[in-house]
């Protein structure tokens, strides 16, 4: 699977508003990402990187252009169909963790499995396995309020991988974390990518974090301004 086409963008455009108030967030983006890649997306605010991520993650539809996700033309899909793609093929990680409050870690992690119709036993098994993989085997009863930022993000990562997706979309995953925790999280993501072949597409504004990825794409004014191999992570981070 590694090396096959994952994401193929062709003339991807997103326009908000109409007429004179129309604003082109994306102005015809072309992009090619293969399975197994670890890509960092960088850019100043207003550059369109959030819009790009939303469309790549099938949370939003483009106004024009085509988006092939594993060969599926996402721009032709309706809301329900995009939900199904997210359910089966994509995991999300957010800057704010976005865990359900007053809910245990185990319940948080098993949430995607609920929508897949798994039985209670299966859900618990898979959720525990995911928590173990992110290094939190004994925290399953804790609610987010009882976990540190880094631990919460780990739970969020466990939730993202519990359905065994082959793609992870991460939106500033370390934005709310200190540098030590950031290093831990990036190490976890790196391992997921190298050991399990999960493709990761990550938005970040920190150069050190972007360096952990293998490829850096710079977005500016709705277009890709730069697309090159990552210089590699400095030794202090690994």
């Amino acid at each position, binding site marked *: 699977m590694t090396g096959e086409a994952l994401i193929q963008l062709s003339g991807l455009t997103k326009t908000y508003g109409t007429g004179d108030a129309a604003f082109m967030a994306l102005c015809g983006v072309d992009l090619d990402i293969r399975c197994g890649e670890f890509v960092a997306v960088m850019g100043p605010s207003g550059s369109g990187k959030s819009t790009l991520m939303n469309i790549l993650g099938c949370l939003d539809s483009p106004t024009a252009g085509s988006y092939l996700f594993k060969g599926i033309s996402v721009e032709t899909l309706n809301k329900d169909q995009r939900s199904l793609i997210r359910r089966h093929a994509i995991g999300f990680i957010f800057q704010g963790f976005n865990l359900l409050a007053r*809910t245990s870690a185990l319940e948080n992690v098993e949430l995607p499995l609920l929508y897949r119709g798994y039985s209670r036993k299966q859900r618990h098994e898979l959720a525990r396995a995911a928590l173990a993989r992110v290094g939190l085997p004994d925290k399953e009863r804790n609610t987010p309020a009882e976990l540190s930022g880094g631990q919460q993000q780990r739970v969020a990562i466990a939730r993202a991988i519990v359905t065994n997706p082959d793609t992870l979309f991460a939106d500033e995953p370390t934005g709310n974390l200190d540098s030590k925790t950031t290093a831990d999280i990036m190490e976890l993501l790196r391992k997921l990518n190298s050991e399990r072949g999960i493709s990761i597409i990550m938005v970040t504004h920190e150069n050190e974090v972007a360096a952990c990825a293998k490829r850096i794409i710079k977005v500016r004014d709705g277009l890709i301004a730069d697309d090159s191999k990552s210089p590699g992570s400095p030794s202090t981070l690994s």
Partner: protein
Amino acid sequence: MLLNALFIALREIRRNLTRSFLTVVGIVIGVAAVVTMVTLGRGATETVKQQISKMGSNLLVLRPGQGWGSWGAPQFSMTDVDAIRNQIPGIASIAPFVIANGTAVYRENDRSSDIQGTTPNYFAIGNWEVGIGRFFTDEEVSEAATVCVIGDTIRKELFGDGIDPIGSKIRINSVSLDVIGVTAVKGQGGFGDDLDDNIITPYTTVLRRMTGRGNGQNVTQIMISGQEGYPTANIVSDVGQLMRERRNLASNEENNFNVFDSLQLADVISSSTKVMTSLLGAVAGVSLLVGGIGIMNIMLVSVTERTREIGIRLAIGARAREVLLQFLVEAVTLSCIGGVAGIALAYLLCKVLADVVGAPFLFDPKINLIAFVFSAAIGILFGFMPARRAAALDPIEALRHE
């Protein structure tokens, strides 16, 4: 899938018990109100029916004028009584009533009362039983004997509980009567009157010693009991025809008398209590509606507060209709819990109030089922709009929400 949704809904409800309680309290009150009103109303209707049946079934009362209290209209005579007894088929027993007012006195106690003069067969017609002593006989009627049978209230008022009234003499309007019997207690009648507040003597005694014969038209009312199984409606129309002939009423003149059928009476009164019950139930139903609006409002607030959570669910791959179902199931679960709690509360209220109001306690499972179904329907109806709003959220916007 639905069972799963139910568990998820219960978990969400438990997560914020205070809010869930506040949401549901309107429904609880509404359901409790409706069920209590309707149950008590049915109890009251039953009570009225029972009270009227104490008067005796198959009982017809022939009275002067239209309506129950027309005192000006011409009364009946003993020849009317004989005519009816001889000519109308289907009659089991007939008793004339001659009524006088007076004050009954015993030693230092007195009580003003209606003295009902009649024949011994009245006791059977009117469903009376002997409490102590006996009733008077036909012979005592022909002798115009100075005897009387009193009701339990008269006994209590004149004699108290220590004295045996049998054999004692009471004075009414300068006539002295021997008390020979007390009727068994009957309690309240269908009109709320005290059935034990009466003094019954032979009618001849009243005519000869109290009121005088007058113009021969001194029978205030005639009580008739129909034979078992014989349709009372026939007796009513036959008596009506006979009386019209005897009174020479032209075909365009209204009756100056009327016949009361106790069964009809029971129906009239019970239908009016049924109307009251429906009215009270409807008013209580309004409170149920308000409870539904309460659910809708709280669910709307809940959706707004859980916008981020909805965004997460949508991002993870929940379809819009699954979010809709989730919130709808939450609303219906809440309203059903409210319904059950309301029914339980109504049960308690009815138990307490039945004693206070004096109505029998008739908890009808059919009413409970309807109330429960209704509360579920309220949940669906008023939960739909908030659920739809939740489902329509854009995941990106929702995730950005505070």
